[in-house]
């Protein structure tokens, strides 16, 4: 039982509950993708499900919850959101490039050759 939940009016509690379920569901599906997708390059797509709308839903739920509860604007979750949105592409691109580099070093045939050195 949540201590303050009883003080929350239904028009705030309902969206919070739905957003929590939606966000957690998207995150879970993304992580299941980490298990189910078969190649590394397919698995790179999986975390973005959690870092885009999965995270967005949960952070908005938290914002609504605290804003209504404290009857003032509580939006510092935006900072987490902005930070994750800015950093996720960077990390995923770095990891993908590192993986491509390693696969090419090992002459893995499943990855396309470098543009500058056509396949010999």
């Amino acid at each position: 039982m949540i201590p303050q939940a009883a003080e929350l009016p239904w028009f705030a509690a309902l969206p919070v509950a739905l957003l929590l379920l939606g966000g957690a569901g998207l995150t879970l599906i993304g992580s299941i993708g980490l298990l189910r997708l078969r190649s590394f390059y397919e698995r790179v797509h999986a975390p973005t499900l959690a870092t885009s709308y999965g995270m967005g839903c949960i952070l908005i739920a938290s914002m609504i919850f605290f804003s209504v509860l404290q009857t003032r604007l509580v939006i510092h979750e935006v900072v987490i959101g902005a930070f994750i949105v800015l950093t996720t592409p960077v990390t995923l691109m770095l990891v993908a490039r590192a993986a491509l580099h390693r696969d090419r070093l090992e002459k893995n045939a499943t990855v396309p050759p470098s543009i500058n050195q056509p396949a010999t």
Partner: protein
Amino acid sequence: MRKLLPHPLVSAALLLLWLVLDQTLAPGPVLIGSIIALIGGWTLAQLDPGRPRLRRPGVALRLAGQVLLDVARSNLAVARAILGRPKDRRAGFIRIPLALRDPRALAVLAAILTATPGSAWVEYDGEEGCLLLHVLDLGEEEEWMRLVKDRYEQPLMEIFA
């Protein structure tokens, strides 16, 4: 003014970040936040990344809305792809020639494409201007080309003109 605020947008963002973290508009935090914003702007000027020339805020706003919509659509598509049978889709790499050359615009394009669940930016070759993209559900390759070139590259070229 240029000396005091070399990067007004960055400074404004830093001040906003400080105030949101402090959750207040009291004079004390505003003062500290302003100092941090000024120092941040000067530091960035020292690093000298060059001043981006942003044009057409209307186009930028429309692009942002389009990206939000596309990411939502792609979320659903990828969720379906993960839960569905793997035989129903074909993942693969795709090469797209880009006319975009501005490094900042390319960074924005890379962020957009990677943040969209269905596609991931893998490699970019600066000399040829060729982009290597990995796509979870390939479908029609033509469609991906058109999506990247018309929907994202075109407005980005207008914004970073």
